[in-house]
């Protein structure tokens, strides 16, 4: 009888430890999820601001690329005219 009681007590000890560990795990995972969500939201906002700033300051870069495109097109045109001549 005492052996049965001891086995039940041992099982109860194991069950209690597992339940506590699982509760601790749930807390850790929830905290990590919350922290990750907050970090991701903050990163998304920062990146959006960075994107908006980049889009707002594209004039100089647009002009430079447009000039390169125009240069490429005119060079191609001159090469075409030279080839036809």
């Amino acid at each position, binding site marked *: 009888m005492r*052996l049965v009681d001891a086995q039940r007590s041992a099982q109860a000890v194991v069950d209690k430890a597992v339940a506590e560990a699982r509760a601790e795990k749930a807390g850790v995972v929830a905290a990590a999820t919350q922290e990750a969500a907050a*970090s991701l939201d903050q990163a998304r906002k920062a990146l959006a601001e960075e994107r908006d700033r980049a889009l707002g300051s594209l004039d100089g*870069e647009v002009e430079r690329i447009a000039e390169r495109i125009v240069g*490429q097109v005119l060079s191609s045109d001159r090469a075409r005219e030279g080839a036809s001549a």
Partner: protein
Amino acid sequence: MSLLSVLPVLSEHASGVPVWSNGDLWSLINFVLLVVLLVRFGGAPIKTALEARRLRVADEVDQLERGLAEAQSALGRQKGEADAGLAQLEQIGAGARAMAESLAVGIRAEAETEAARIKASAASESDRIRRSFSDEVRRRLVEAAFVRAEAQLASRLGPEHHAALFDDFSAKVAEVTP
């Protein structure tokens, strides 16, 4: 009855009274005769009975001693079994505590792994958003550059060149790096 009791008998004999008429003398004779008969015929049976009684008592003592020894042995066995039972209970308890600690450590490790995975997933998602925004900026930059280049070319070249030039340029657009 003692030898002193004979003295009155002798004194009566001396006074002329017959000795055999004295009652005390016959009592003395009876006592002596009883002692002689008891010693002659009763000594051996009494001795035998006493020896038998002594043997029975010794046997009972031996039995009691054996019983006591067996009881002590049984008590020792019971105590040993009780000690073994207690040791087994302690072993079960220790095993349970060890198993509980092991399981808890494993679950905590799983929690840490899960937390690290969540953080890594968030970092990966952040990188994906960063690349997405970067691609969007690059795409809108190229679109705006094409619109502006098209406007400039429209003012410099005649309409007859436009289709051929842009077809030619489109083939090379992959070489343009912003």
